[in-house]
């Protein structure tokens, strides 16, 4: 295996990757912006390089600085984490050009699967079910109206280059379509520099279910079950769990096989996630592929007993998968809650600041991934993720009880800093969540003033 890994990321995921590197006996090279000078990964790493000022476009997103840090530290491999450059084909390509191993799929695969239009085409070819809609981008208002009429309202208009919950618009009324079509194109142009959009049926009460896949460079692939990420606010996941509650066993198998088939057909190598929507009739539809480790990967690790970052590194080193699909077994139930420094009472506005106190939960079957510490700072320059709290239990009710216990142990203090902890506790108590029959509309119910008063 390679000897030194540069971690081209920050925060909890940089530390999490560093931990596995250390366990594998690899040298850890970290990068940091001036904002992150005191981050734990800087102390943890064998070497750390300051790559620029706070704004990510001048540091974590600035390719020359990252490449230069890799050169200075003698890195042989680069782990991109999630976000930032992790799904930029250019970055993977630059690594290849410099003789560095990029821990992720080949640039051409990132390119194809990162574009929603080509990704949909590739997955349709591999036989994955798609929502009724267009595979090619639609380029004029009349064509859009015709497609929408064919598939039936509501429809969702999505930017081909969109992601992370941005660049999409639900259209309920045919009369609104022309205006909303124009708006989403203009938004897409300004956000992503790419105004191509496509249209598909919108499922208001769907569940967001994703399948974790590992593919090695020898043509082998396997899946590690599903994660249910239906608890979202503004399409940002806040609670994830594995397995997905209430899915028939046959459907689980079908989705797993479809995900592996799709990624192998696309030439995928590494850890990837195939996202699906599942409707109330238990039909599933391909949505998108994430060509990286996911924020919520720990719930799969807890149920399957697999260190996914270790598998990423082994695959990147050219090693074959060392378990078969049959040997992989899931046990029990895992839940992750994302603790964000944000104020649920002010529309989830981020609340960065210094942490004067931080008490993290511990004890049986609790895992905490964080780069936050007492005396440290949640920077306004980056996303407000403060910690990921994960629990495991033999079954879902025990996992929920354990998560409630763990969240209650969490204590975060700092001037101006608030967290979504209580909001998460409310969501965990909601009868639909407890019953496992919730869908992506749950947070809307909790934040809608009318339903909120009842709770």
């Amino acid at each position, binding site marked *: 295996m390679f000897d030194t890994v540069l971690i081209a990321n920050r925060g909890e995921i940089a530390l999490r990757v560093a931990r596995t590197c250390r366990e594998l006996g690899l040298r850890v090279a970290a990068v940091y912006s001036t904002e992150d000078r005191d981050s734990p990964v800087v102390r943890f790493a064998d070497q750390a390089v*300051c790559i620029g000022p706070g704004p990510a476009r001048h540091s974590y997103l600035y390719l020359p*600085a990252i*490449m*230069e840090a890799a050169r*200075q530290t003698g890195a042989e491999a680069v782990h991109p984490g999630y976000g930032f450059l992790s799904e930029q084909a250019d970055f993977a390509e630059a690594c290849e050009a410099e003789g560095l191993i990029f821990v992720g799929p080949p640039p051409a695969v990132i390119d194809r699967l990162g574009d929603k239009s080509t990704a949909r085409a590739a997955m349709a070819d591999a036989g994955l079910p798609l929502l009724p809609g267009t595979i090619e981008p639609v380029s004029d208002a009349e064509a859009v109206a015709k497609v929408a009429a064919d598939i039936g309202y509501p429809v969702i208009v999505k930017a081909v280059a969109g992601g992370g919950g941005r660049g999409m618009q639900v259209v309920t009324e045919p009369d609104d379509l022309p205006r909303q079509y124009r708006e989403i194109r203009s938004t897409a142009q300004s956000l992503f520099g790419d105004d191509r959009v496509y249209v598909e049926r919108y499922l208001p009460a769907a569940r967001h279910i994703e399948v974790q896949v590992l593919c090695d460079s020898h043509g082998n692939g396997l899946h590690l079950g599903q994660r249910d990420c239906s608890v979202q606010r503004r399409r940002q996941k806040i609670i994830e769990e594995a397995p997905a509650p209430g899915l028939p066993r046959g459907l689980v198998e079908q989705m797993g096989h479809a995900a592996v088939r799709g990624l192998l057909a696309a030439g995928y190598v590494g850890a990837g996630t195939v996202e699906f929507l599942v409707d109330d009739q238990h039909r599933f539809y391909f949505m998108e592929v994430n060509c990286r480790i996911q924020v919520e990967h720990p719930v799969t690790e807890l149920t399957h007993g697999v260190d996914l970052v270790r598998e990423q590194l082994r695959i990147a080193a050219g090693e074959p998968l060392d378990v078969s699909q049959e040997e992989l077994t899931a046990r029990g139930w895992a839940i992750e809650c994302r603790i964000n420094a944000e104020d649920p009472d002010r529309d989830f506005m981020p609340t960065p600041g210094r942490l004067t106190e931080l008490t993290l939960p511990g004890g049986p079957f609790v895992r905490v991934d964080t780069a936050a510490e007492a005396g440290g700072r949640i920077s306004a320059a980056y996303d407000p993720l403060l910690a990921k709290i994960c629990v495991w239990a033999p079954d879902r009710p025990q996992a929920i009880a354990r998560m409630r216990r763990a969240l209650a142990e969490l204590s975060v203090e700092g001037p101006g800093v608030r967290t979504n902890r209580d909001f998460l506790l409310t969501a965990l108590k909601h009868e639909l969540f407890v019953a496992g029959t919730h869908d992506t509309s749950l947070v809307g119910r909790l934040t809608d003033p009318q339903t909120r008063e009842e709770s």
Partner: protein
Amino acid sequence: MTSLIEPAPTDSPAPLAEALDEVRRSAQSLLADLGHRPRALRIRAGDVVVEMEWTVQEAAAGPAAPAPATTTAVVPVEVPADEPALPPGVGVCAPIVGTFYRAPEPGATPFVAEGDQVRRGQQVGIVEAMKLMIPVESDAEGRIVALHVADGAAVEFGERLLTIDPQAG
């Protein structure tokens, strides 16, 4: 004993919290490294100042001596050795992580040398990052009092490359 640490004003003023942190941590590490406690301590960085004074009794064991009134009498102390000492003046820092070059090309005359007079905006070096040649320019007028980085050395973002004495302009 009194102490004074006074770094040069920075060219891009950091946010207040950062500046305060820097000054406080500077005080803490200084105090931690001192064998015995000073009678007074003052740290200032641009707008930010930390000053502390101790009575003589607290500085050492033994019978209590009368506490002299603390007023001024400032004697500079050495900077703790874990941070390399930087001379007073204005620092010119690396605009990017990369390799520092003192001359436009191998074998050519360096852009500047110690003792040179420079004006604001004058090129004093190059940092190369992934084949990008990024000029380093002085953001002050004055005389170069120190060069901190050797030709061809790796530098991080923000690393001080050289120091200019603006008084000497």
